[in-house]
Each structure stands twice: as C-alpha cells, then as structure tokens.
C-alpha cells in the first residue's frame, strides 16, 4: 500500500514534508489505520503519533486521513483510502508538536471556558441529586463526547478564531450542562455565550457532524443553545 505521511519536527526541520512510503499489508484483512501506523513505526521508530485504548474510547489518535478527520483506531483502511493511497496528516488548525501529534492546549482552553461541570448551589440531598428518566434522556447524544477534537479541528470557524469561538466540541459540552435538570447556572452559562464569537461564529456547515467518530451532532446542540439564548433574550 502507498502511504503519504506528514513529517515535521519543529526542533530540527525548517518546514513540514510529506514522506511517500510503501507497506506490505497482510492479505484478506482490513486493518485499521492505527494498525498501519504501528507497522510503519516498527520500521521507523521516529514516527510520532498519540494512541492509547485502540478502541475509540480515549480519543487520543484523532488524525486527518485522506482529508477527513477521524480516529485512526476505528477507521478501516478501506474506508479511509478507498482508492488505495492513504494520506495521513495531523488534525488541521492546531500547532504541530511533532509529526501527527498536535498541541491541544487551545482546544482544552475553549472546553474549560464552558465550565464543564455541574453547578448547583442548593444544599445537597442526603444521597444524590436525582433526575427523572425523561430529564436523563435529554443528555443522550451529549455526554458521549470523548474530546478527540476531530470536530473542532474540522471547523473553519475554529481555524479562524480558535481563541474566541468555543468550537463544536466545547459547545456540545456547554449544551450538555444547559440541558441538565440538576444544573442551576443556566442564566450564567447563557450570558457567557451571548457574545458575537463564542456560539454565533458557527455557520452551520456541519463539518463537525460529518467527522464525529461517535456519531454525535454538535450542530444540533449549537442550534438548541441559540434557541435558549433567543428565548432568554426576547
């Protein structure tokens, strides 16, 4: 198989380059892209990428495969490279630490801004804060995010304003707490999102939905935040 691999070490390289490599894949098996990276690394240990659980839970190995972001561990080679040539690049829009490893500090700063924890100033009950089944169901499709950054780094609004636009991953989590019946900070959360950048930079192009490896829908969550802002503002 032909592979084009992004290589860059800011400490030693003047600029990034794409290395053309070839690899013999085992017959009759459809490997995951992470398996291909492991085989490449066995031949050249200097290749750098992140990985951990190798089953789509940890979100470590988000990369760009043939132009589309996704998790290397859950993306079959046949799906990433249907025409045979596999092109691997780091997630776009974030500074490269080395090869496929990106600096996710900006992504986490935006995540932190939405205060991704439950806020409830009322005295805690003896055991736990309960929810009805219906209220709990409102969190489905929101809590499953693994923060792989595939969505935010596929979003042009995040590329242009990574310090101001929260990005789809952060906004999905913002709505996860806005929708939580146990959270009492709804007004404060909405007030923090009402400016022209944090939410309203989303143009609804749905790149985030297209690439989410967990099948989540940040665009819908952003629409619901807008509706909540509208209901509060009118």
């Amino acid at each position: 198989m032909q592979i084009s691999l992004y290589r860059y070490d800011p400490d030693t390289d003047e600029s990034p380059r794409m290395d053309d490599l070839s690899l013999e894949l085992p017959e009759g098996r459809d490997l995951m892209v992470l398996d291909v990276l492991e085989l490449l690394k066995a031949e050249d240990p200097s290749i750098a990428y992140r990985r951990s659980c190798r089953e789509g839970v940890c979100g470590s190995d988000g990369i760009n495969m043939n132009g589309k972001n996704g998790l290397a561990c859950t993306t079959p080679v046949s799906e990433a490279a249907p025409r045979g040539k596999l092109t691997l690049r780091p997630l776009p829009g974030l500074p490269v630490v080395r090869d496929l490893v990106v600096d996710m500090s900006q992504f986490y700063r935006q995540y932190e801004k939405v205060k991704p924890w439950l806020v409830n100033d009322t005295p805690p009950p003896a055991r736990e804060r309960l929810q009805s089944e219906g209220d709990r169901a409102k969190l489905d499709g929101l809590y499953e995010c693994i923060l792989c950054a595939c969505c935010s780094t596929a979003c042009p609004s995040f590329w242009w304003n990574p310090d101001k636009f929260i990005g789809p991953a952060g906004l999905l989590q913002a709505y996860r707490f806005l929708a939580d019946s146990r959270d009492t900070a709804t007004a404060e959360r909405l007030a923090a999102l009402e400016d022209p950048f944090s939410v309203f930079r989303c143009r609804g192009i749905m790149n985030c939905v297209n690439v989410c490896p967990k099948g989540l829908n940040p665009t819908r969550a952003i629409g619901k935040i807008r509706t909540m802002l509208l209901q509060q503002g009118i």
Partner: protein
Amino acid sequence: MVTSVTSFGRSGLADWVLQRVSAVVLAAYALCVLGFFVTADSVDHTKLVGFFGSLPLKLFTTLAVLSLAAHAWIGMWTIGTDYVRRHYFGRAHTLFLAAYQVVCVAAVFVYVLWPLSVVWGDT
C-alpha cells in the same frame, strides 16, 4: 464572553436576529419591486417616479436601505474578523482590520445616503 466594540449590536444574539430580520425585509422588498416590473405593461420614468414616489414605497425603500446597511455591516464584519488574521498580517493585523472596517463603514454610509437622498429628495 468575548467582547468586541465594532460588532453591530455588541451582542451575538442581537446581530444574529437582526441579520435574519433584515434578510426577510430585503426579500420582501425585492419581491415588491420585482412584482412591479413583472406586472407593469411598460416601464418609463413617469411610472417609476409614480411607483417609487408613493409614501408607502418611500417608507418601504427606507426600511430596505437601513436593513441592507445592517445586514451588510454584520456580514462584512464577520468576514473581516474571520479572514484578516494575525497569522497572516503579524503586527499590522490590527491596523489592517481597522482599515478594512473603515472602508466597509464608508461604503455602507454611501449606500445609505445615496438611495435615501434619491427617494426623499426634491426630484
């Protein structure tokens, strides 16, 4: 919360609502004018003056021009703050963005004053 002194309403929600309301006004105005041209047997200067000179249409034109100004400023401000990036312009970024916004404001100013002077002028 990200503050910006040059956005139209200083609020993302206000700009978002205004952009949609102004779009509806502009669409209605375009249909109204198109309707005139489609239904008129012939169009000459006298008929144009008669159509655009009526008070309801003068008010509608004024509303459309102001909607255009708000819609254009919100759109151009968004484009500027997306694409005029510090990454490209370095230290000159703020100066370039300010210059871009001044040019946009001047253009919007002309696009408001010119049609309003025609509609409400003596001719």
